[in-house]
């Protein structure tokens, strides 16, 4: 079936198309070149509308153990946000930690077609993929969390060579069916289990004697050697600590020019100036990002309101538990691999710290020059629910709206921020980079995030609106793999997306020390740790898409 999308204004930054009126042709789930005389089976009149590739959220906690814990902790949030079933859709609920069906439907309604769970504990991979399989509408992928796993730390403490580390990292990506490597407070999650309450970049882990810098450098080297498209996706040391901008700058230097992605960098851009010993260091971080072209970031913007923080960083979450709102929280030490902490949180616009956090995120967006290297996230749900994206887009595109809000927040915080003097407004083209082209590029998803022939037909069509929040909240049409799945915010068809993975080469001999480790220390068999493809294929409901790694196996 040949589908024609006629007369829309296309924004496709990967092909440098900036609002040109162009027709698009879809066949068999892909965008195809103009087929000339071929008969069109179905046509959509998109005159006056804006066309982009489907949105890609490269950092959203939507599946796995800690997300489910978040759901368990927030029955009151669920009660306020029920979603009734319809003949097409399942029921569900939730706002900060929505149930899986609701997550998928809401993303699709908003024009997103791919979501990536950024902190999958490897032993929790089976569970994570089960939840993602029950998340409809969107393609998905996972980042395997490494850096506090005892197997790796033992290797580092014993002076293992880089090849062994590379093999272990590659093996983990295979075993967990992941697309990238996530590092969270490297060595810090482990340190907390030894009663270490803080860990700076050059501070040794109390048991292993290994520093976060060393762990980060070995893992960054591994990911680069393996040719994994996405760099190490780093949740750095000292998250949330006033003055942690110094740590962030040191961490950028520690990368020594290798590609590095700093996630939710807003939480890592804090100074310690002023009466409250808490200030914005966004300008310093933005300058460092501007000058270090090997660094990409996603912001992790906070929004005012109720949410829940769910993170693998047990050390930071324990440290922050006093700020829980409502006053409940949990922490978990996990399987000699990682940990997690879930702390409900309410960001208040009249609270000095929260208001400054909001400001810092916006400063980062507006001061980082290269839109390809500053991606749009709220670190759902840690900064806010992902349904706040349209509001965030409006803040970035509409200076006057932004300044109106600035006038309503905590005045001391506003006074400390340069936001009011920043004139920059993001264009539609740049928003398309932040929300689709940029994420696709840095994840290595070559067949999406754009609208050229051969691209997967994940397409979002917006009705132009002065109020950009309205525009982005309710796309007119959303196509997934060439099928119309949502129209004016109403689900038209329920589909199930693919899981994106990488499979770098590695020496299978790594299984010998792994097997020994599992037999001596673990409570599960190595064979059961590894997933099989059939688990993701789920009797035909799922698909797997393998993305190539850049280089061959390096011995």
């Amino acid at each position, binding site marked *: 079936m040949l589908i024609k999308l006629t007369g829309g204004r296309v924004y496709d930054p990967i092909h440098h198309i900036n609002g040109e009126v162009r027709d698009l042709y879809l066949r068999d789930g892909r965008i195809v070149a103009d087929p000339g005389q071929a008969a069109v089976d179905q046509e959509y009149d998109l005159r006056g509308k804006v066309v982009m590739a489907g949105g890609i959220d490269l950092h959203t906690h939507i599946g796995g*153990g800690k*997300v*489910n*814990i978040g*759901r*368990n*902790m927030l*029955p009151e949030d*669920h*009660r306020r946000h*029920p979603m*009734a*079933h319809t003949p097409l859709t*399942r*029921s*569900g*609920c*939730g706002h900060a*930690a929505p*149930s*899986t*069906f609701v997550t998928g439907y809401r993303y699709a309604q908003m024009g997103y077609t791919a979501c990536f769970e950024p902190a999958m504990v490897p*032993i*929790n991979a*089976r*569970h994570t993929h*089960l939840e993602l399989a*029950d998340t409809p509408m969107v393609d998905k992928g996972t980042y395997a969390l490494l850096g506090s796993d*005892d197997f790796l730390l*033992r290797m580092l403490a014993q002076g293992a060579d880089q090849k062994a580390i590379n093999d272990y990292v590659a093996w983990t990506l295979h075993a967990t069916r992941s697309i990238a490597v996530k590092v969270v407070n490297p060595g810090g999650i482990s340190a*907390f*289990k*030894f*009663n270490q309450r803080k860990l700076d970049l050059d501070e040794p882990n109390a*048991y292993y004697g290994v520093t976060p810098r060393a762990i980060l450098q070995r893992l960054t080297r591994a990911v680069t050697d393996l040719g994994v498209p996405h760099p190490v996706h780093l949740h750095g040391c000292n998250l949330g600590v006033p003055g942690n901008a110094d740590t962030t700058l040191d961490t950028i230097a520690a990368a020594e020019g290798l590609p590095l992605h700093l996630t939710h960098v807003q939480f890592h851009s804090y100074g310690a100036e002023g009466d409250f010993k808490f200030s914005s260091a966004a300008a310093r971080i933005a300058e460092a990002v501007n000058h270090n072209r090997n660094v990409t970031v996603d912001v992790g913007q906070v929004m005012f309101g109720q949410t829940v923080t769910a993170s693998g960083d047990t050390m930071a979450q*324990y440290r922050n538990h006093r700020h*829980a709102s409502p*006053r*409940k*929280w*949990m*922490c*978990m*030490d*996990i*399987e*000699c691999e990682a940990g997690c902490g*879930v702390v409900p949180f309410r960001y208040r616009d009249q609270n000095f710290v929260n208001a400054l956090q909001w400001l810092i995120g916006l400063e980062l967006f507006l001061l980082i020059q290269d839109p390809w290297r500053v991606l749009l996230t709220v670190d759902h749900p840690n900064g806010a629910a992902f349904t706040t994206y349209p509001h965030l887009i409006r803040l970035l595109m509409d200076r006057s709206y932004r300044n109106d809000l600035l006038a309503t927040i905590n005045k001391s915080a506003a006074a400390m921020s340069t936001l009011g003097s920043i004139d920059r407004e993001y264009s539609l083209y740049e928003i398309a980079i932040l929300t689709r082209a940029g994420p696709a590029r840095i994840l290595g998803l070559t067949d999406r995030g754009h609208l050229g022939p051969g691209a997967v037909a994940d397409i979002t069509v917006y009705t132009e609106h002065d109020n950009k929040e309205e525009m982005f909240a309710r796309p007119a049409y959303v196509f997934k793999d060439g099928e119309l799945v949502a129209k004016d915010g109403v689900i038209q068809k329920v589909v199930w997306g693919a899981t994106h993975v990488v499979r770098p080469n590695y020496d299978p001999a790594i299984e010998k020390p792994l097997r020994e480790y599992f037999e*001596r*220390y*673990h*409570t*599960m*068999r190595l*064979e*059961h740790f*590894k997933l*099989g493809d*059939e*688990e993701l294929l789920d009797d035909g409901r799922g698909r797997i898409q393998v993305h190539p790694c850049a280089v061959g196996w390096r011995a």
Partner: protein
Amino acid sequence: MTPSQDASSPTATWRNVTCPFCGLLCDDLSVAHQDGRLRVLEGGCGRAEAGFGHPCEPATPLVDGQAAELDAAVQRAAAILRAARLPLYGGMGADVAGVRTVLELADRTGGVVDHMHGDGMIRNILAIQDAGWMVTTLTELANRADLLVFMGTDAVTHCPRFFERLIWHKESMFDLDTNRRQIVYLGQSLDSGPGHAPDGRAPPGLACDPARLGEVAGVMRALLAERPVQAPRVGGIAVTELQALVERMKKARYGVLLWSAGDLKLPHGELTVQTFCELVKDLNRLTRFSGLPLGGEDGATTFSQVCTWQTGFPLRVSFGSGHPVFDPWRFSTTHLLESGSADALMWISTFAAEPEPPAAGVPVIVLGRPGMTFAQPPAVYIPVGTPGLDHAGQLFRMDSVVTLPLQKLREAGLPSADQIIRAIQAAL
């Protein structure tokens, strides 16, 4: 993924088999299939031997106690659900696939879901929802724990291999001599035999009425906070002994406090659980301490995990108003049946023949292990396969973070619960 199978001899032997019969989900069993029977060769316990060894008898569906064709049973079940205003889907002893399919059916039919062990599970759930907790998982315990405090449980009553696999047998990664682990029991009538160290050290036990454990933990919190305690004894335990225990807990490098919510059969047992959790949190100001809630039998953890991600709530969820509503009391199996709010019951129990479905006074559909007997014959009984024996699947271990694959070991000619539920849904 599949266990290694030695097909050259008449006995097929499966290695690395996952046992589904308690929350520990031991996955190191060797099981032989010979002459139609499964036999645990290695790695089993009494419960595994009984579970795997259960004969695979021919199993016929029953309608009103009489043998019936499967299709007739399915049609009758569908008729019962079609006529029901508020069907209750209970028992819920099933694997991931089974739970997923029942939730879909419950959503479509506007029913309620609860688990046979809901009374125990809800005590933990309410504690999580109210104040949260700090917990750990099995590999952490096996490698790190130097002090284990058992509150009203001995673990082995529910998980026979608990000590063998996690406490005495393992090497530890962290220079910990596992033989020197300290074990302490608080409670009554606990099986402390497994708690004896390999060198013969007997674990101390503080005898205490289990109903008073909440008070005991409360006093331990007070002692930890150095508040004056007037009473000389609490729950039968001398406060001086509790003081000594608290001192040991403070000195632990990684302490673990264990309980089994299902065994805290008290009114508002969740308050006892919460006091345990708050004690653990208090200890973390000084050292590292974690709770470990035991349980997970009959797919309890599986059910609550799948239900949470699909509905937002872990159990006792009603779809009666078109969207998930959670109520820990109104939507309990007991209350729904006693109050007459539920007018049909589908009872799913694929791992064990007990417990029987509760006396209902409403039409009952049972999807259960072959060979179940009933005080009163249900309207429909469809024998279904056991996950991990008769068909592959997945189950969550009791520490919730690990999901094990289950294998198919024999051809029993039984449909899975998942298949039957789909057939019933199609017949609606």
